[in-house]
């Protein structure tokens, strides 16, 4: 195991930024910490890096306690690499110097790397496709190139744990997509354990082996991207990751009666025990369907957003507003009275998936 967080809490004055955090980071694992701003995800990352110390609990790396409530090892004494949100490139050093710096100073460098420092610089530069720009200064690089240098600097000393603090959030949308691929490739190439902090659920779903969803300083759920997306165990995860509509009603076994209407039965085999106990059914926008067929839940279309491949509808049912994504086959317009059903096919495939899990 690369790192372990045991019962960690962190308070700033009376504000409890982290409470009762337990997390294992396995060898070679890509762990994404996902949550809205202020949920404590960056605090957790800074505890792993050693820029902050926990108020309670322990941080363990490679079977050695690196931080507890009494004391902690500073970052330069930990076997880590880090990519910062702002890239944190040194404005007075060229690309090559950036990569050489950790090779000169990192305290966990293997003998091979120490001997072949220049070779390693070239190797890493080629890995991030920056070999031809080695002499450039940070001010002469584009956003994506800066990001590559920041990545290269972090992986150069082959740290046991690579920490990434929203590394893509200062790039534009298109570049973000292509950098995702590059980070995935680097992960495969280096086999490093990665802890990746983000507030973008699609980034986490796309790249991580394991997602940790955090909210208000606590871990809400830990699981594979698929588990997190299709089997959320808390209303927060369902709405934050899957953008699900949280529908109230009554559960009877695997059957859900939305709004306690006995006439409508939804098959809720895939819904987790935790949400059933809260009398909720998490229906993601693509799981619902709008039609004029009666025998669904009656509602009125109040907003229509055309998206090209699909349309995002907002339907008002009683006091609530549901978001539903539907293809372009049938189009509805604002003010129309419609009926909402749970899509049959989707529930069935999910039932199957759940058996495999």
């Amino acid at each position, binding site marked *: 195991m690369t790192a372990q967080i045991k019962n960690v809490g962190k308070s700033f004055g009376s504000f409890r930024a982290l409470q009762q955090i337990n997390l294992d980071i396995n060898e070679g694992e890509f762990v994404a910490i996902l949550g809205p701003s202020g949920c404590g995800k960056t605090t957790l990352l800074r505890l792993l890096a050693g820029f902050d110390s926990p108020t309670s609990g322990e941080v363990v790396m490679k079977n050695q*306690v690196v931080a507890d409530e009494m*004391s*902690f090892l500073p*970052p330069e004494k*930990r076997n880590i690499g880090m990519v910062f949100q702002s890239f*944190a490139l040194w404005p007075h050093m060229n690309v090559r110097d950036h990569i050489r710096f950790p090779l000169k100073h990192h305290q966990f460098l293997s003998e091979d790397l120490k001997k072949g420092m220049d070779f390693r610089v070239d190797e890493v530069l080629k890995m991030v496709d920056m070999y031809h720009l080695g002499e450039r200064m940070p001010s*002469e690089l584009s956003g994506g190139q800066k990001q590559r240098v920041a990545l290269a*600097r972090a992986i150069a000393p082959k740290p046991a744990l690579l*920490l990434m603090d929203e590394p893509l959030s200062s790039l534009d949308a298109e570049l973000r997509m292509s950098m995702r691929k590059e980070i995935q490739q680097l992960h495969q190439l280096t086999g490093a354990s990665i802890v990746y902090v983000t507030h973008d659920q699609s980034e986490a779903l796309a790249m991580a082996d394991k997602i940790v969803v955090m909210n208000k300083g606590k871990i809400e759920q830990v699981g594979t991207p698929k588990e997190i997306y299709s089997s959320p165990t808390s209303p927060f995860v369902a709405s934050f990751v899957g953008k699900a509509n949280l529908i109230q009603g009554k559960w009877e076994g695997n059957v859900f009666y939305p709004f306690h209407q006995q006439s409508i039965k939804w098959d809720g085999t895939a819904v987790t025990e935790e949400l059933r106990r809260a009398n909720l059914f998490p229906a993601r926008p693509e799981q619902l369907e709008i039609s004029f067929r009666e025998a669904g839940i009656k509602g009125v279309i109040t907003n229509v957003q055309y998206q090209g491949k699909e349309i995002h509808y907002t339907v008002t049912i009683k006091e609530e507003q549901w978001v539903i994504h539907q293809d372009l086959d049938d189009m509805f317009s604002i003010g129309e009275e419609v009926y909402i059903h749970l899509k049959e096919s989707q529930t069935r495939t999910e039932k199957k998936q759940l058996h495999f899990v």
Partner: protein
Amino acid sequence: MLQSFVHRVQQQNKWWFLMGALFVVIFFVVPIFRLVFLSFSSEGGLTFENYTSVLQDRSTWKTIENTLYVVVGSSIIAIILGIMTAWVVAYTNIRQKKLIQLFIFLPFIIPSYITTLAWTQFMSKNGFFAHLLSLLPGSLEPLNMYSLHGIIIVMGLSHYPLVYLLTVGVLRKIPRDLEYAARVSGASKWRSFKNITLPLALPGIASGGFLAFIASLDNFGIPAFLGIPGNIRVLSTYIYEQIVGLGPNSFERAATLSVILGFIALTGTFIQWLLLKKSKNNETAVEDKEPRFLFSKRKRLTIELLLWSFLLLTTMVPLISMLSASLIKAYGLPFAPENISLKNYQFVLLENQKAITSLKNSANLAIITTIFCLVIGTGIAYIRTKKPSILSKGLEMIIGIPYALPGTVLALAMIFAWMEPIPGWNPGIYGSIMILLIAYVTRFLILQVRGSITAFMQVDSSIEEAARVSGSNGFFKWKKVLLPLIIPGVISGALLVFLTALTELTVSSLLWSSGTETIGLVIFNFEQAGYSTYSTAFSCIVVLFILLAFFMLAILQKLWDRRVLHHDRTN
């Protein structure tokens, strides 16, 4: 491994904390405490006697009245000039703004007693201004500078750069959309300025005004040069005369007056700090330097002409008058080719022993003060920016007190603290050059702390963190990453400390002794003794040196930008 490492760090931290606390208490807290203590003590023990006797004295009230006139009058001049210049530079499309800014800062860079000397020469009976007036019809006389309004004018002109500095930043940070929104809503240019821009800029302007107010209270050079000959006293010169006069109870009286003056100054500083904090609340992050008022060519030229004549008349012309006075063989002779010589320069640089010693003393003091401040101040700035806490905030505040206190007050506190650091034991610090060094370091340390804080603020914390996760926290982090990035800012702070210490007058005038004269003091003594030709010559040398130093700094910073930060290749 973890335990031993942590133990060591904690032990080190304890040591540093103890050392720092001791340093602050001995050099910053004790002197002020002793001053306050003395003001309440008499032979019979603790009393209010000193206060009652000082406040019953008629001359005290006359002094307070004069001080009030001078401080309020000069602050009003400073505020009006400051706002006007700031508005023109921040918002209009005039050209050469950088050069204009340089000229605005000139009275700020040159010590105020030299500016005063320049003005007295400019306004003297056979000076430049008198010539100009004689060309006009009627029998106009130049202004008598040795008067209250003379003091007020020179002080106002010396302090308006403070108001300008604080206002121009505030004006630029007010989003232009706010004023545009008022215009779109139907308000005229003037109304939108009056109802939108001015209220938003007010905290910044008021804070600048208070800064001018404190600076006027503190100023010693101007009232000393202009007021003492005409028997016009303000609080700072009154305290000086008490100490130098060595009358009965003079130290207690001076201490009492100092506590009163110090209290007013610190209250002013506190209000100024509150206002500044308030003005920072409603500002956006970036300064918008694009002009907002685009004048036609003709209008622009008029404004430029007005502004430049004001700037040249208030800076260059007095300095040139001073230069011409210094080149004349004997005082009173007209400025004509046959009367010009370098003999005054020869005298102050080669013949007069006091002047030569003072050059050496001031240079030594300035260099050692700068080195001390550079190391300690940058260290404190680092702690202040990287580990902001109540403790470090308090540290910055305490270190700022000696600078916020008027120089005469600080000098008096220094005498009491170092004459007998432990009652009954006089190590001879007072009376040697050491007392000047200690006073300079305590007074100017805050300048370096602020300069270095600005430098550190410009380096994002992740820049340092990146060096740490790369495995480096000690020597190499500083050498390779932090120092190259902070050096330009740190050096400009150090230059400010160096020049301020080099030309210091107020503190030295009370702490000097035979053999430890400083440049400021020698110029003061020449002027008091009526040797205007020598004092002007010496002042010209100082001004030349200051301008040279700034010129070198500008070149160094350009080179640093190019060589180390490679900024020229960006575009």
